[in-house]
């Protein structure tokens, strides 16, 4: 089952398209990192998935074919919007009570246990909690709804490093505890690298890369060799990106696994997730989507 499935999905705000012709399938049981530069359409995609926005073009379904925003979808998807908006003038206890009254599914004990664990006082006003505590409270409210899918929009952007770590630890604990599927967005990949096992790279309103992190890493290699021979290699292999530094060139190529021998004179090494994402971000024309490999000899840009 796919927790999010989109076909030709597009959203236009007045004149400009925030998201265009996006087709993707996010399988269940993953922690999905939705990354992309600012303005790539991440928030728009998430808002479409949680039913806050209606698509201009195409269609999106969640949890195996449910239309976002319908009772069935709302029931099973918990969403924490950017900056974790909550009612600042309410106490934490009131916030729990309020969320409980807005939902059919609610686990009060879980919520209270989590807050006790985090040492967030129930009597304190939400507005007087630290940024990290507010984010944790928003996550607690989301998890107490026992969702099948947890959607987090830039959950870490306003948190300090320690709060980021604690927040992600909470998310991972929930994944381990009840196997909730998670989609979280960030423009900083480093935040998600350790936790995500599925990557969707969105750039300029288009899905550029989508796949399981392990598959993506196994399917790419970094080749290092003489710069003047880079063109020859590009003729034969699916080169995503060429980086030249003097006489040396680094090529990110798609491959069918490490077993494939490197061209003579070239040294092959595995690629890191961050390198991979940066390479694709620098090549808006390149794409790595589920399906057959792109044919060899395709154009690749060059940076130096």
């Amino acid at each position: 089952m796919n927790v999010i499935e989109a076909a030709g999905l597009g959203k236009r705000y007045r004149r400009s398209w925030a998201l265009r012709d996006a087709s993707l399938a996010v399988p269940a049981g993953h922690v999905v990192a939705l990354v992309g530069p600012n303005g790539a359409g991440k928030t728009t995609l998430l808002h479409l998935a949680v039913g806050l926005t209606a698509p201009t073009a195409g269609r999106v379904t969640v949890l195996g074919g449910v239309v976002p925003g319908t009772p069935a979808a709302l029931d099973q998807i918990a969403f924490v919007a950017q900056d974790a908006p909550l009612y600042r003038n309410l106490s934490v206890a009131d916030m729990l009570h309020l969320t409980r009254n807005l939902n059919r599914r609610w686990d009060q004990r879980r919520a209270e246990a989590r807050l006790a664990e985090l040492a967030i006082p129930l009597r304190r006003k939400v507005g007087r909690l630290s940024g990290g505590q507010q984010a944790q409270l928003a996550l607690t409210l989301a998890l107490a709804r026992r969702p099948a899918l947890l959607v987090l929009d830039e959950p870490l952007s306003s948190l300090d490093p320690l709060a980021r770590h604690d927040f992600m630890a909470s998310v991972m604990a929930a994944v381990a505890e009840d196997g909730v599927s998670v989609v979280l967005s960030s423009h900083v990949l480093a935040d998600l690298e350790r936790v995500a096992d599925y990557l969707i790279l969105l750039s300029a309103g288009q899905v550029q890369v989508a796949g399981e992190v392990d598959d993506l890493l196994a399917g790419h290699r970094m080749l290092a060799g003489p710069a003047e021979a880079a063109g020859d290699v590009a003729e034969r292999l699916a080169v995503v990106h060429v980086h030249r530094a003097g006489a040396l060139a680094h090529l990110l190529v798609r491959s069918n696994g490490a077993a494939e021998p490197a061209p003579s004179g070239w040294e092959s090494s595995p690629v890191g997730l961050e390198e991979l994402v940066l390479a694709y971000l620098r090549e808006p024309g390149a794409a790595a989507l589920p399906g057959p490999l792109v044919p060899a000899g395709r154009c690749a840009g060059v940076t130096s």
Partner: protein
Amino acid sequence: MTALAPAVAQPRRPVPWRRLAWVTWRQHRAALAGTAALLGGLAGYLLVEGLIVRHAYAGVTSCRPARSAGCQAVAGMFNDDYYGTAQTLSGILQVVPVLIGVFAGAPLLARELESGTFRFAWTQGCGRLRWVIAKLLPLAVTVAAAAGAFSLLFSWYYQPFFAEHADGALAPQLFGLRGVAFAAWTLAAFAIGAFAGVVIKRTVAAMAASMAVWAGLDLVTVLFARGHYQAPLVVSGANPGYGNNWVVGQWFTGPGGVPVDQTAVRNLVQHAPPSVQDSANPNAVLAWLAQRHYTQWWTYQPHGRFWPFQLIEGGWLLALSVLLLAATVWLVRRRAA
């Protein structure tokens, strides 16, 4: 794969209204408390002042013989003592509906949209449709009911002044405070506020805009609409306003029944003999004009039309409010984040 419950197998029983109403209460109890404090304070004052007025008025009604100069003096003293306060009070109360309506109505959705909390609220299990209805309906009914109860108290307070024929029931400064009008204008202010909030999405701007719209609507109603709810009656001669009717227009006709403008009449009166111009009798000028076949005509709404007019005004305000609230719900449903 996670253990996902199939969506179709979910229970279809929605979140109960009672629980959503608690959310509304918890979030807006400050606004409701403010309304209660404002109306309660004013009501307390009206109650005390009303008892004093009634006590004093008992002295007027028990005066015998009723038409004697002595009793007229007693009545005059009653008016001197209490009528000024009553007028000031009714002046102040004109703004109460818009205060309640706008303070309770405009921030209702504007604050959620302004602060981004709508993204929290609209993604909860109950769905935004039930959420917004559970906010609008109880609050609208509450503010309208509170205003209605308050205007009953005001009518009670003001009763002696009507009995003394100090004012007509249709007098603009009183019409909106009595009957169903006070509640209807409060409801309209609430609906305008809620609608402005979802359109403008800024709390302060929505409050300012809805106050302006409400005041404009009130002004247009009093000046141009209310006098035409039913065709006004036409009478010549004595001013029907003295019978507590609501005069909406007057003009003169000259000899042969031709309408003449006010300037011509004024010029004519200036040429009246001094005995007429200086007469102590206020009707002397009119009598003199009548001898010259000049007739004064009046259009007026008889005071007996109070309830039909109340129902007409209450009716269209209710329709307007329902329309605005429905539009607000529709906008919330359709609005993209």
